[in-house]
């Protein structure tokens, strides 16, 4: 009988084992298992916020959104994958295998559509939508993507968006960026990325063991990114971009009073949408293009200034009283310093010239003599005063330009007086330089963002006096006006019947024999300047040709913006 009684202990021991295990599972590990159970059933589906709009000074959208059609598969509704893929492949003319690969890559939760074709034309989208009932699981859905109405116009300013790389995702996560969310890569899209992103929302979904959605538990709406207003004029940007055509170069137009950038273009340009939609062949072509279309020449490319430097040389000479406006210097067609002979562009010589004519006709001999009289230290000081070899304060990437720090030989000083030798200037610096003549001697700091999310972006005190006398400035300006108006002026092609233009041409030598960059810097209208500009055409010959033409186009637009300008242009 004791054997029977012992069975009781067996019961007690078994019970104790079970209860001990339950204590371990439920009381000690309960929180952990509760969390696992919640992980099992809850999924957060992020809802990406619409990216903030970017508007130009006239309130026109220059970076907004557009609806595209994507083809997706909803795994939980799928019945016959092969049939769906075959059908879609036939419609969009893509091999079934590539679609299958895409599906395998994109597929996540059963209720989340997996995109297999990023973009289909509207007519195909409608066709598939109509025949969709035959292919359960197929979904054609509209989605908003970033659109740039100016296309290549202002592309360098706006920049582009692309998906973060695998390495970036963990870093961006702390700023609330989701893996599929596009991030700004260049220009303003990068500078203002955080404000433009907005705040992600999401839907908390309860799922079952097959990852099918059971119900929605909660939703937080996404918050659209901040709206950004710029100082630039989108129409003007497009106009300049079109004027360059296939010609490489850059142009900067700014308001000489405030430094607000009205247009900044770099040619060749690129369509920013290519990156957002991950068009690999298009991107590869842009990256491999020897002309570097992604580079913003207006701010990051340094060029030899050539004759546009004569404006600074003239001002320095007047300030140092080494010449007066009436001083006459003879140009025999060349100048010999030591054993080196430097020719004027006019080999026959300009004869005796005073300052106004020297500017108008861009006489090299005159300004080389001036530079020798001013001497290098004072010439360099004047060049630095006008902002060369220093950053302009531009909020994005820029090149600071270059001036030599060493002692220069007599010949090198003479060449420096006509903008040749060891000197580099960016188009942005050249525009600020032109602005200083336009506004009576102020160096402005270029800026572009007016408001972000309705709030004005604070700016530093952004004007600095050059410190040249009004008389000096007036004398140079008279010359600049004559460059355009004088029958012998080098910038005659900038002459307009609707607006007064002042400027200076420049021709920068390159390391290719006979191939020169053409410059035109100036401002308009002459009496109350609305715009100061610098235009450079790479290997575009003389500054009096293409750049002067573009200058006239810019000035006429500034004088008669918008519709009036269009009428004027078509009326001709």
């Amino acid at each position: 009988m004791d054997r029977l009684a012992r069975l009781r202990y067996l019961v007690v021991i078994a019970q104790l084992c079970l209860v001990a295990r339950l204590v371990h599972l439920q009381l000690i590990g309960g929180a952990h298992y509760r969390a696992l159970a919640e992980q099992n059933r809850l999924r957060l589906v992020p809802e990406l916020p619409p990216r903030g709009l970017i508007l130009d000074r006239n309130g026109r959208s220059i970076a907004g959104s557009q609806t595209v059609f994507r083809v997706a598969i909803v795994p939980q509704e799928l019945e016959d994958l092969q049939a769906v893929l075959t059908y879609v492949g036939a419609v969009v003319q893509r091999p079934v295998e590539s679609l299958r690969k895409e599906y395998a890559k994109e597929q996540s939760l059963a209720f989340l559509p997996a995109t297999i074709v990023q973009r289909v034309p509207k007519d195909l989208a409608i066709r598939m939508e109509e025949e969709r009932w035959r292919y359960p699981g197929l979904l054609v859905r509209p989605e908003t993507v970033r659109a740039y109405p100016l296309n290549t116009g202002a592309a360098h300013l706006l920049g582009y968006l692309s998906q973060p790389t695998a390495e970036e995702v963990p870093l961006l996560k702390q700023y609330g960026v989701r893996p599929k969310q596009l991030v700004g890569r260049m220009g303003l899209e990068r500078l203002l990325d955080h404000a433009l992103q907005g705040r992600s929302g999401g839907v908390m979904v309860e799922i079952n063991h097959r990852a099918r959605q059971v119900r929605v538990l909660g939703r937080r709406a996404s918050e659209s990114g901040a709206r950004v207003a710029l100082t630039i004029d989108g129409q003007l940007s497009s106009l300049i971009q079109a004027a360059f055509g296939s010609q490489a170069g850059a142009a900067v137009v700014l308001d000489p009073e405030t430094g607000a950038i009205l247009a900044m273009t770099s040619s060749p340009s690129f369509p920013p949408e290519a990156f957002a939609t991950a068009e690999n062949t298009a991107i590869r072509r842009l990256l491999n293009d020897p002309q570097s279309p992604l580079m913003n020449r207006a701010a990051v490319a340094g060029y030899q200034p050539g004759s546009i430097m004569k404006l600074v040389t003239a001002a320095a000479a007047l300030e140092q009283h080494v010449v007066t406006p009436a001083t006459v210097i003879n140009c025999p067609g060349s100048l010999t310093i030591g054993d080196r002979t430097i020719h004027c562009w006019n080999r026959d010589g300009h004869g005796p010239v005073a300052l106004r004519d020297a500017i108008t006709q861009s006489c090299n001999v005159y300004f080389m003599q001036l530079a020798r009289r001013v001497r290098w230290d004072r010439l360099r000081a004047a060049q630095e005063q006008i902002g060369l070899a220093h950053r302009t304060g531009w909020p994005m990437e820029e090149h600071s330009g270059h001036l030599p720090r060493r002692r220069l030989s007599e010949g090198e000083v003479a060449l420096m007086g006509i903008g040749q030798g060891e000197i580099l200037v960016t188009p942005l610096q050249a525009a600020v330089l032109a602005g200083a003549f336009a506004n009576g001697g102020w160096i402005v700091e270029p800026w572009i963002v007016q408001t972000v999310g309705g709030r004005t972006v604070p700016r530093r005190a952004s004007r600095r006096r050059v410190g040249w006398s009004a008389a000096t400035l007036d004398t140079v300006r008279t010359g600049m006006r004559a460059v355009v108006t004088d029958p012998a002026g080098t910038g005659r092609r900038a002459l307009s019947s609707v607006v007064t233009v002042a400027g200076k041409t420049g021709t920068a030598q390159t390391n290719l024999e006979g191939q020169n960059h053409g410059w035109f810097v100036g401002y308009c209208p002459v009496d109350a300047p609305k715009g100061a500009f610098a235009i450079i055409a790479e290997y575009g010959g003389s500054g009096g040709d293409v750049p002067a033409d573009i200058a006239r186009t810019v000035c006429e637009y500034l004088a008669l913006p918008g519709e009036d300008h269009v009428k004027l242009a078509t009326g001709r």
Partner: protein
Amino acid sequence: MSSWQRVADEFDWWLFGAAAGLALVSGLAMASAASTVHAGLAMRHWGWTAAGMLLSIAVARLNYRTLSEYAGLIYGLSLAALVAVELAGAVRLGAARWLSIFGFSVQPSELAKLATVWLLARHLAGQGAVLPNSVVWASLAIAGVPAVLIFIQPDLGSATIFGAIWLGIVWVAGIRGRLLAGLAGAALAAAPLAWHLLKGYQRDRLLAFINPHADPLGAGYTIIQSTIAIGSGRLWGRGWFAGTQNQLSFLPERHSDFIFSVIGEEWGWLGCVAVIALFGLLLFRVLRLAMASAAPQGQLLAVGIFSWIAYQACVNMGMVMGLLPVVGVPLPLVSYGGSSMVVVWLALGLLQSVRRADREV
């Protein structure tokens, strides 16, 4: 005094109460567990429970000794049914365990358990203090034949129950310690051979028990989801109909073998301990009844039923908690399954009869 009155006086209300308590817990848990499996499932379960209870009370009125005349016949019938299952059974979940009789799906292995207990009790009763070897061999055959028939269905879990039943009965009937040790040694030596007899999925389950995370979506899935369900219940549980593992179907077989996980998830630690306590009460009452019984046959019948229910309850609860490998063994009186429910209630009814009959001696 009417016969009903006598039955009521002699009735072990504690035993009945413990079983009814389990049935109540089961009925409530089933409502929640079955709601996402099949609409009519809970109703059918309640029906089987009620049928089992009524049958139990009816059997309690009878004299088990009269019925014991038919123990051999019932055993023979259940063996025949097992063979029939082998030849023409319905295959579900990869195993042929069911036989269709008059539109009902019957699981003959459940009846075989009771029949085996009964026949073993009859066979071993009155053999004296120490069992002769020939009797032991015969008893091994009585338990072994249905076990083998069930093992090849295949149903490893149910087959092992016959071993537990046999062990319990021969232990109390007086098997010699040396013989038992020898048999245990032989069983251990045969274990590697048994491994080869196991089906692939059975081996997977045993391996998954050792390391469930080796294949979390395959063999290990069930046990991982089950421990998550039980653990997430914590002290108070997530509430009736509010267990997410259950309601969202993360828990497989939640109405049958894994019903205890549902109780753990929705009713928490307190619910689980209550179920274990109810089983403890039930088993203690069965042992008490066995000890109080003067007749060897009745006593061994009680011990056999004790071994059966105790083993099955322990293995099931241990399995869902991850203490034991996953073998398909239902929780007696709680899991879904008509055959099991009715047969266990029948066994409890027989025990009431034993109590009454053997006291009168």
